[in-house]
């Protein structure tokens, strides 16, 4: 079979870092290729070279057998290479059709106006050809993450992509959506398209890919057929040692109520109610999980708890005090830690180095500031501690946050928030984009905090993660808590139904006795 993409001896150097070191990679047309590797292994960089965002220091890119040199993504798209970033580039108030054709709209009347009928027809044709379940007239803001991702794929296909690159596409999806995405992969490859995707989940790579390439320290350590390799072999290739996967969770030793959310409603940015009358509470020494498809009010709820958004109704009680009107700073000072959902906008100041980022949120605390004067020596030591403890690579506290790989940025944020000596940790997607080894480490730390009597409020769209870590699990749908279940006894199907907004109450509900909503009413 013909080679769709051939990367020949690609080297990409950044000042002080070799992100890709003489990487060869060949992907056959009509196959799915998975890219695995630890955080900072160079996966994203390699794909950015292929997509024309970076110019390789050395080496040659071949697409369809021809040597190519891309100056920008535009050139890559013209050559049939499309990339779907996890951070979707869609315009919310516009329809699916408008988004798909944006920038390449068919025109009429001498190009004076958009031929909307033709645009819609073309999008419908494209959709039907690949069997996508997408309404061309729906607005982006109305559809879920999974659909948005499909719109991104349609957009690339509309521009003539033959090769599709997806960077960690499954990180934001629910298991059901992941299955749908893989079905889309099959349809696409059946029609001769080529897919390269990055993932941290070995199971997904083995299930969906034809071939798997593992990167380590910027080098290609091997390309293997997906059906001839075991998880253990892959893990060994990635980290060079065996990876055990056991979350040891001792029974919860619950203490007093640390957080009580009482009848809280919150509006989203557009002023539409995103959270409606939600109540729950979290006790010291337990992990309270919130599961749900992204965009069902979790972000708004969490922002209300952490002080970044004002609720329109209800009370938030923290350690016995009504903190509804407290500023964000006061909540931080009251030992509330927060691993934010959006690491690029909120969690890190991208232009600051890690020393400066390490004190974000503590810049007024006694630890780093005395009479308003910053103690940079303490800040340096602190950054170094986080870097070492949480294995941030490269271990350079002077490098700007923007220069770190996604997973390493995440590890640094998690480290900063966990090391704050918190009474409550609010963690949203704490391991999103983090490799297996570090995920395990973060889970261990989270459970260690729990054992030491910290209350943990955990939000994740990764069902396996919330089920594994939570003592009680609230499932949210459309701004409401559908139910609070015992994650051990509730089945994945039951939780899935709740997430979809359906009540699986055919008599024997999944609601476990000890796990009912003991909210702060």
């Amino acid at each position: 079979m013909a080679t769709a993409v051939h990367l020949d001896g690609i080297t990409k150097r950044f000042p002080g870092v070799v992100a890709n070191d003489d990487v060869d990679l060949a992907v056959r047309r009509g196959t799915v290729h998975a890219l695995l590797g630890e955080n900072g292994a160079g996966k994203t960089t390699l794909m950015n070279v292929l997509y024309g965002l970076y110019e390789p220091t050395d080496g040659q890119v071949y697409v369809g057998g021809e040597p190519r040199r891309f100056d920008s993504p535009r050139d890559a798209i013209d050559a049939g290479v499309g990339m779907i970033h996890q951070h979707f580039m869609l315009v919310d108030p516009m329809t699916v059709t408008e988004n798909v054709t944006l920038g390449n709209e068919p025109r009429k009347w001498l190009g004076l106006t958009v031929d909307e009928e033709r645009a819609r027809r073309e999008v419908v044709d494209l959709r039907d050809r690949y069997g996508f379940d997408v309404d061309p007239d729906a607005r982006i803001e109305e559809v879920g993450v999974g659909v948005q991702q499909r719109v991104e794929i349609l957009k690339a296909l509309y521009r003539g992509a033959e090769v599709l690159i997806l960077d960690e596409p499954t990180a934001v999806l629910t298991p059901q959506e992941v299955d749908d995405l893989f079905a889309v992969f099959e349809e696409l490859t059946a029609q001769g398209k080529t897919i390269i995707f990055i993932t941290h989940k070995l199971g997904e790579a083995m299930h969906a890919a034809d071939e798997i390439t593992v990167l380590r320290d910027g080098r290609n350590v091997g390309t293997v057929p997906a059906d001839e390799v075991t998880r253990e072999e892959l893990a060994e290739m990635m980290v060079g040692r065996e990876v055990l996967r056991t979350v040891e969770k001792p029974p919860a030793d619950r203490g007093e109520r640390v957080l009580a959310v009482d009848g809280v409603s919150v509006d989203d940015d557009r002023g539409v109610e995103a959270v409606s009358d939600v109540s729950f509470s979290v006790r010291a020494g337990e992990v309270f999980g919130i599961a749900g498809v992204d965009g069902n009010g979790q972000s708004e709820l969490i922002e209300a708890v952490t002080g970044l958004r004002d609720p329109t109704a209800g009370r938030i009680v923290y350690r016995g005090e009504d903190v509804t009107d407290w500023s964000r700073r006061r909540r931080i000072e009251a030992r509330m830690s927060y691993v934010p959902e959006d690491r690029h906008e909120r969690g890190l100041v991208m232009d600051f180095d890690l020393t400066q980022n390490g004190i974000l949120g503590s810049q007024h605390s006694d630890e780093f500031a005395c009479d308003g004067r910053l103690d940079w020596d303490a800040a340096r030591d602190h950054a170094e501690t986080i870097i070492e403890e949480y294995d941030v690579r490269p271990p350079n506290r002077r490098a700007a946050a923007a220069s770190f790989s996604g997973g390493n940025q995440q590890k640094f944020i998690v480290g900063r928030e966990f090391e704050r000596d918190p009474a409550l940790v609010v963690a949203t997607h704490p391991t999103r984009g983090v490799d297996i080894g570090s995920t395990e480490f973060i889970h261990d730390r989270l459970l260690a905090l729990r054992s030491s009597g910290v209350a943990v409020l955990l939000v994740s769209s990764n069902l396996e993660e919330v089920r594994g870590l939570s003592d009680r699990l609230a499932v949210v749908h459309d701004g409401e808590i559908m139910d609070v279940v015992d994650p051990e006894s509730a089945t994945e199907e039951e939780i899935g139904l709740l997430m979809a907004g359906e009540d699986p109450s055919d008599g024997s509900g999944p609601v476990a006795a000890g796990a009912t909503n003991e909210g702060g009413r």
Partner: protein
Amino acid sequence: MSGDDRSGGARRRGRAALERLVRASAAERVFISTAALVLSMAVGVVIVLAAGRMTTCGEAAAVYFGVGFCYDPFAVYDSLFLGALGNPINPLFRPLEGQFAPPFRRGWSPLNGQMAVTLRETTILVFTGLSVAVAFRAGIFNIGTQGQLVVGALATALAALYASPLVAGLVGTLVLIPFGLLVGALSGGLYGAIPGALKAYADANEVITTIMLNFVATGVALYLVAGPFKDPASAANETVSLPGYAIFPPVVFEPRDDFSVLALLFGVALVGGVYYLLEHTAFGYDIRTSGIQPEAAEYGGVDAERTVVSSMAISGALGGLGGAVYVLMIIGNYQTGIPAYGFDGITVSILAGNNPLGVGFAAFLFGVLKSGSIVVDVNTGAPPQLVGVLRGLIILFVAMPEFFRLLGRRVVAIEPERPVATDGGRPGDGGDDAGAEAGGEVDE
């Protein structure tokens, strides 16, 4: 095809150059600025020669390659730069020709009158440059330094005037000058806090409000000094002059130079102070964080509204101090028609990359150019307009790399950010940030 290649190559080189500029180290930036200065002078030489050919004059000022020119560019630049320092160089000192006479002209002292002019301008520009820089670092484009300076000047002139009868002599100086500076800082600070509050609590764009407040300041000041506070003995619109003991003592310079080393030292101390504030205090951390990433600042517990108001108040206070020093050191009362120090402060700040330490140097360069222009006017036949062109060239060339750095930060910072954003970030928020930022406005 080949045309495509060429344009692609140009784009790649353009982007690479921009990236290089953004990542330049401090030493490299000094080198770039120096190179830009030399380059601007090379271009200036050509312009002066061309202008000299196109003018008719009785006697050629210079003859190069057998062609006469009305203006001698070397004499012009000599007067512009060295004239501003009081012509320190001994004409017999020509090391290139093997003549090692003493380098400094006999009788030259660094404490000469022209040097005083240079340093006097430098002093005021240090204040206004710092004023703009502080706001800029907080992500606020304060065009209102001029208005804050006017308010500070007027308030100082009046307050010192009414307080002056209460004290006299050395005690008067010791009391009135700090008092005048305090009044200038407070009034300028309050005047700066207004657009700050409007931005923080009413979402009003600071560029618009500060420009409008500049007009308000000048207009109200004119009304006051033309009416209620007018010096009855004067035909001009000005207040009664302050007594001599309310004026900055000249220390090592002549009193007629209207310059005091003390004021300059105060400015230099503020350069250090502002640097310290930004880099070594928690409040400075808040300012810088809100300036480059407001969402992260909010996450880090920074009160966005308060930071906007207080950084604008500090910016205004620095502008007001500039006005106070202008009154207490240079004119001795308030007169209408205050020079545009506030607007020059914007250029000074950009020249300095909004770095307080750089403001000191940029203000000095500005001071040299301003003072040197006068020397050129007196010493050579070159018309002031031509000198204005040369000054503009120098500023343009030196500021351009910094300006491109400011712009480039937005372009280059986004490139690595986008790929990184692919495996993190909040999904499905419409990708508005990358797009909007690439749009590249400098405001807010």
